[in-house]
């Protein structure tokens, strides 16, 4: 993933908790169908009530995307990645904000919107993990679709088409020292 700075939400400054060290296989608690279902519920609620997210199989074309990462610390530490193709991310933001209600979305708007979707996705995945897990704030960068789980062979990934746009969600096992994210002390 290309590390291009995106406008970020203010990072948490409350007490930090370290990301756990154990490695867990994400497929032991969530499968691809569940991931697609969580994406669909999130999209239908906040983006497009009429949406149909069609699973995409086979080789995924890499396209420029807005990529949000969020980590869950605890007994089963994982990293969650949500990649939304750039043009789709802009449309997502417009639809979340109400088309035309706030003018053309800024880069900060797009970053915030995709980050919030990753937060909602992460919160729902956290519900499948052991109690006591904590979620970080999202970290949003420019990257490409297909980046989910790039660094880890245990990733569970789901790629869907939202109209002409690619959306990918991935869950990968947390590897010690891999994430530059800070887990906030409180659950989200």
């Amino acid at each position, binding site marked *: 993933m290309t590390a291009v700075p995106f406008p970020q939400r*203010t990072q948490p*400054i409350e007490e930090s908790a370290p990301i756990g060290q154990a490695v867990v296989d994400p497929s032991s608690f969530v499968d691809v169908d569940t991931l697609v279902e969580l994406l669909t519920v999130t999209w239908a609620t*906040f983006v497009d009530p009429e949406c149909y997210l069609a699973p995409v199989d086979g080789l995924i074309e890499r396209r420029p995307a807005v990529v949000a990462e969020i980590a869950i610390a605890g007994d089963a530490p994982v990293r969650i990645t949500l990649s939304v193709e750039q043009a789709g991310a802009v449309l997502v933001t417009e639809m979340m904000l109400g088309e035309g209600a*706030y003018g053309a979305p800024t880069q900060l708007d797009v970053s915030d*919107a995709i980050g919030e979707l990753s937060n*909602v996705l992460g919160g729902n995945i956290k519900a499948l993990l052991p109690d006591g897990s904590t979620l970080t704030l999202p970290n949003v960068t420019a990257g490409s679709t297909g980046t989910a789980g790039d660094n880890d062979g245990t990733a569970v990934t789901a790629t869907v088409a939202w109209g002409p746009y690619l959306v990918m969600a991935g869950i990968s096992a947390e590897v010690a020292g891999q994430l530059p994210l800070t887990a906030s002390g409180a659950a989200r």
Partner: protein
Amino acid sequence: MHALVIDDSRTMRRIVSSVLARVGFTCVEAEHGEEALAKLEDMTAAGTLPAIATIDWNMPVMNGLTFVTRVRADTRWRDVTLMMVTTESEHGQIVRALAAGAHEYVLKPFTAEDMISKLSMLGLVETSAEVMA
């Protein structure tokens, strides 16, 4: 009626504010608990105490649970209804929030109808069926 919408995501603040505006609230927004406390002081001084505050849990600077605790410790704000709006679905966390003084709990993702239904249950709007008709 006035409302205070607290969330570190501006997108989410706009979504929540838009739902509340739809049922007649005038909204003030804050991006974390500390800013919300300052806004609450301002609103109190201006005589526009919010009927409700919607509160995300995990935010920088001051999280939602601390905000709830601080508000509940101040008798000037005992009439403010506190509604958590969060992805935190763990039972123990919900209990913590309610024990700290939150009145209601809305999980993300939520629909406008979900939120209006909660507002209706709290007696802050007409019955949700009338509002959505």
